[in-house]
């Protein structure tokens, strides 16, 4: 899988928050695969994504959104334009 499969806006946010290059943001990238993606960065990424797309996640879902593709699917479910 490669980063081209991730919508660019989502890819750029995650790259910034996780302090990695956009190319590293592939759909299967998940918590634990990069050192910087810990629980606090996760919260930060969630807040950044919520702000960018004007959506709110259910707090119970937040800990389950552990990969880029899961985040993307959840955003699409919320009707966000990616």
């Amino acid at each position, binding site marked *: 899988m490669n980063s081209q499969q991730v919508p660019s806006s989502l890819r750029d946010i995650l790259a910034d928050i996780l302090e990695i290059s956009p190319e590293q943001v592939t759909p299967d990238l998940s918590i634990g695969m990069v050192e910087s993606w810990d629980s606090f960065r996760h919260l*930060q990424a969630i807040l950044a994504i919520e702000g960018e797309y004007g959506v709110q996640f259910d707090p119970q879902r*937040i800990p389950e959104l552990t990969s880029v593709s899961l985040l993307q699917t959840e955003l699409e479910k919320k009707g966000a334009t990616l």
Partner: protein
Amino acid sequence: MLSDSERQDLRRRIKDAASRQDAGAAVKFGRELLASGKPADVMFCASAFGGIADALKSQMGTRRLKMYVVRSVTVEPILPFLATEAVLSNYALDLQVGGYGSYVDEMLNPQSALAKFEPDAVLVLLDLEEIAGRLPELCADGIGAGVEEEIEECLARMAQLLRSFRSGNSARILLQGLVVPDQTSLGDVGDANLPHSLANAVLQLNQRLAALCRTVSDCVFFDVDRLAARYGRAQWRDARMFLASRLPVSADSFRTYSRGLVRSFSTLFRAPCKVLCTDLDNTLWGGVLGEDGPEGIATGSAFPGNCYLDYQKYLKQLSSRGILLAIVSKNNEADVRDAFQIRAADLALSLDNFVATKISWNEKSDSIRELAKELSLGLDSFVFVDDNPVECEAIRQQFPEVAVIEAPVEEPWKLVEVLAEQPFFDAAIVTDDDVNRLNEYKAQAQRAVLANSAGNRDEFLASLGIVCTFQSALQAPLSRAVQLLAKTNQFNLTTRRHSAAEVEEFTSAAGGQAVVVRVRDRFGDAGVVGLALARNQGDSCYIDSLLLSCRVIGRGIETALLAYLGEHALRNGARQLVGEFIPTKKNAPCASFYSDHGFVKRVSSEEVPSDSIFYELDLTASAPASPKWITLEGNESNELSASAVFSS
């Protein structure tokens, strides 16, 4: 709002600036990008700023601060905001965060992670549950038995915490207050009317905590509730995120919150600006005096004159706590004098309220340079307010140290708002010396006149009738001593920015001296203007700090202070006086202080390399003597109290 392409463009510029280590450009574009408020942009800037830490320090004098956060809530997502906002205020933060609710151990255990980190400041961010967890229950009926007791108990606990911390650690403290709960079971009406509603109890608690902070040295109270109220309580918190992750502030408020924190802790590290230079036309009043005439300019109680009247009142209030006002205007001086006379009833300020006026057709940069010289103040003490963007840009380019505010000429009702938004004049402490400053600077101008007429220097100095009073730094009061240490740059031999706690250490050590000097002469009372810290080691007395406010340099007061130190060092058993000089960009005026007073430069031994230059003087052979034109008072710390000498 920035468009996505603008954001990308700014990011590119920031990246470029960072890669060529251009701190000024990186911060300039960073400031623009951060206005987007988007977390991703904040992270981007935090990374970029992190990579130019050395350039920030060397090119912009950015101050590095180690900060430890003790907390009972989640702060991690806020830290990048705090770090970037700090850079915009010229601080580079090294942040470390403690565990949830483990603040007592962190603050009081000398082996804790906090103690080992040796922070410059500790941010105490505790929420209601942690500080006074029983209050919501006790306040539920609004008439609350036990509410007062709970508040007292909570205060006693916090006082104990802060004082115990202070006795073992000199890090500055920021104590965050509580946000007044917005929705309680009493409803708005009950909250407002019932004496012990939770809202009233928390308001009271905040006031008491602020009062507590005043009694602890180097401690400032951060009124987070004021921010929450200003920007809207409904938006301040996100209940979802608080309940799920203990995040105390909504993501939309991270930036505002961080700015407030930075603005509050800044007062612990930086002295406020001292001079406000205001333009006249379309700034102090509406219209152009040269065209509209004194009757035609807008000022007074009717709109739009009242916009300018509000601005004048604001300036007058600044002046009453020691901020000096000056006029810098391109006008005919006679016209301006007429206007102030003819429109006196419509103006909140008279010419007497200004320490100086520069009304001419000269370049404003020349006027500001002259003012700095006349007032013996550094350009970084100046704020310049002008409606003309060209004048503003000229000052920014010529004097980057001067803070420039562009007056909103199309929206004069925003004048006060624009000024109040800026932190330049923030001060957590106001001393009597601040209040008296305008008279003191005016007296200085009169002295300058006399100096020109007096024949020789000694005669001139004798004619001033200078009286020096020495006091313990603890009685100065201590806050004034610390203020002097924090803001004196030019005549400051070592520029050590000691905290109050560190000053106290000098007084408690055997053979230690912490002395301040008050100065008055026939023109006025300059207040506490000098300070020296010294300690005996073996048969030597080491002068750790010696400084004098620049407005009294050159009158022999520095010599009197040195003589005082020498005399007491001898009495405490020292035979030698050791002076230390640490050169900085600003303290060249005192570079030859010790050699001028007969000290001999110590040949550097193979000790630790340092910037310090040491000088020695044999006290038994040639103790320094106070100049004969100075009258000395209060040689013994308790001999004369300040109030007895200066009851006038």
